[in-house]
């Protein structure tokens, strides 16, 4: 996903969103010059929005973004849905097949698997349904646009944030660090880990001494494996956790092991209410924030534009931001942390 940074930047994208918003207010009908949709008014556009699972804050935020775009433009969203778990590939394939039968104008999809969904995505695309992928890629060219976090860049940002936290506490960006992955073999997590390892190379005095795998468990095992890292490497200066559950597990492990927050730093991906409280209290030094709201919002906006027959940029990096104790109350951090309340209209 090296090409994700290209074509279209965040500011430009927001400009596009604003333009569309203005369009809906003034006219209520879609771009007249677009031949394929000339007869169709904006409010008649139908779409299906499928995330990996509805059972998580992250995806709920993503859906909220999609719904905000829908409400703002008065579209007919047929369905916002997802499988019962991120591991349920067959469940998501069935949802996409169902969506195909409903003949929507466009589909917004966060593919659960980079390979298993390919054939289904091809079918949707060939049926003339505009296909907007969000969050995770698929090994197919059958899509109109792809909006996602650049996970490698996110991992690099985590490395920088961790190194700076270590420097702030110990006076030098030096010492042993370790990282913990939620589940080996997941593309986005592998990219984050690789980004972290690449990013940490900029700090020659920091050495990565260990890594652990929480085996995909969301509650107990992350605590256990981080505890084991703390036991194994008593001089550890920092830990990187590559998703919400490993970051929460790491924070709990730090507490249970009486790790001194003045000596050891913790940085990881994705926020929760509890982690934000930990951040403000200094128990967590950095949370890498993605923008699932923007993925949902932008996914629908891109879908509209594509359905109007206008070529949309194929890749959009929705960006990563590091929340730290210092910037926890800034307006950007707040908007990313509280997308439901802070961004009623989708634009921060």
């Amino acid at each position, binding site marked *: 996903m090296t090409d994700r940074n290209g074509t279209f930047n965040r500011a430009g994208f927001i400009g596009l969103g604003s333009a569309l918003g203005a369009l809906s207010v003034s006219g209520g009908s879609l771009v007249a010059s677009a031949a394929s949709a000339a007869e169709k008014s904006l409010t008649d556009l139908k779409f299906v929005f499928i995330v990996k699972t509805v059972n998580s*804050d992250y995806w709920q935020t993503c859906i909220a973004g999609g719904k905000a775009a829908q409400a703002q433009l008065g579209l007919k969203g047929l369905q916002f849905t997802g499988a019962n778990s991120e591991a349920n590939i067959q469940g998501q394939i069935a949802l996409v097949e169902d969506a195909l039968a409903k003949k929507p104008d466009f589909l917004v999809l966060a593919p659960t698997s980079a390979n298993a969904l390919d054939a289904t995505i091809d079918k949707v695309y060939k049926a003339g349904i505009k296909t907007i992928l969000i969050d995770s890629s698929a090994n197919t060219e059958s899509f109109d646009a792809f909006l996602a976090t650049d996970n490698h860049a996110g991992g690099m940002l985590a490395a920088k944030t961790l190194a700076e936290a270590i420097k702030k506490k110990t006076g030098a960006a030096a010492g042993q660090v370790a990282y913990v992955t939620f589940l080996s073999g997941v593309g986005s997590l592998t990219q984050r880990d690789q980004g972290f390892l690449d990013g940490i190379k900029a700090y020659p005095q920091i050495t990565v001494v260990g890594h652990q795998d929480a085996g995909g468990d969301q*509650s107990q095992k992350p605590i256990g494996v981080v*505890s084991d*890292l703390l036991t*194994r490497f008593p001089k550890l200066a920092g830990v990187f956790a590559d998703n919400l559950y490993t970051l929460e597990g790491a924070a709990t492990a730090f507490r249970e092991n009486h790790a001194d927050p003045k000596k050891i730093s913790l940085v990881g991906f994705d926020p929760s209410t509890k982690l934000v409280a930990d951040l403000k209290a200094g128990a967590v030094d950095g949370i890498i924030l993605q923008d699932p709201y923007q993925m949902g919002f932008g996914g629908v906006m891109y879908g509209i534009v594509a359905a109007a027959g206008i070529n949309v940029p194929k890749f959009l990096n929705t960006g990563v931001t590091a929340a730290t104790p210092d910037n926890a109350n800034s307006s950007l951090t707040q908007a990313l942390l509280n997308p439901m309340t802070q961004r009623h209209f989708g634009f921060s």
Partner: protein
Amino acid sequence: MSQIVSGAPAAQSRPARPRLSWEVALRLGLLLIVIALAIVFTLTAPGFLSPQNLENNERQMAVIGILAIGETFVIITAGIDLSVGSMLGFSGILMALALSHGIAIPLALGAVLVIATLLGLFNGLLIDTAALPPFIVTLGMLGILRGFTQIFGNGQQIGFGNSAFTDFAADNFLGIPQLFWMLVIIALLAAYLLHLTRRGRHVFAIGSNLEGARRAGINVRGVTLFVYAISGLLAGIAGLLLTARQAQGDPNAGTGYELDAIAAAVLGGASLFGARGSILGTFLGVLLVQILTNGLNLLNFDPQVARIVEGALLIAFVYMDHWRKRRLATA
């Protein structure tokens, strides 16, 4: 299997001598493996014997240990309870919701445990009265409870600002984590119930020969309801403890834990064909998996190695068991 037991219906509630001694030998073997592992890790793994690491291990094994004890009761009746992981998640979400709405801890705790017990009873009722296979009933319940857990949790983690509840999981009593005390107390009570009471003997009798037990006048329904209710209650307790430890309710908590619990019970000598198993064995099974995972982590092994070794041990133990059974059958 069925030939062996049906040949000796009178001996069901009291296993024959050779079987007992082989079981003792197997438990002893398990204990020796645990001790040997502990010695190896003490010598090789930095920090293995540190007080903090012992504490970590004790905390880490409490939840699976409590689940596995409930599972042991069920497995001895030749049943299985696949719903314990979901029951754990369900109880945890209910507790988090109750606390976040300001309900007092004792009331919330009592209500959640009553609900978990009733749901366990319901499992037992379907299995006994409707004569449905335990695998199917509890597999159905696995899905149903997880679904409700997600709906109640609205797909999100639920925080609650109740430090008295979370402190329980973080604090020690006499230098030992309270989570581990809970496991020890539950194990002792369960061992008494299972091995020293008439009800406990009936649990074994049902697993040995259901029809025989019925004809011998054992209240099969009562015992079936009893074991599934115990399993439900213990999964409920495990859910409360995990919620306290995580300081939030997580709608995905406990996913897949039923398999860890079953594996631990089987490692500890419980037979999926029924009539065999012990609380001490299950405790040792949980301890073995925990020490193994912890030690290999401390030795910086690839995280996947622990899973491979656990799987291999499980198969090896069950193989030894079957080898013994075949020898008995041909003798």
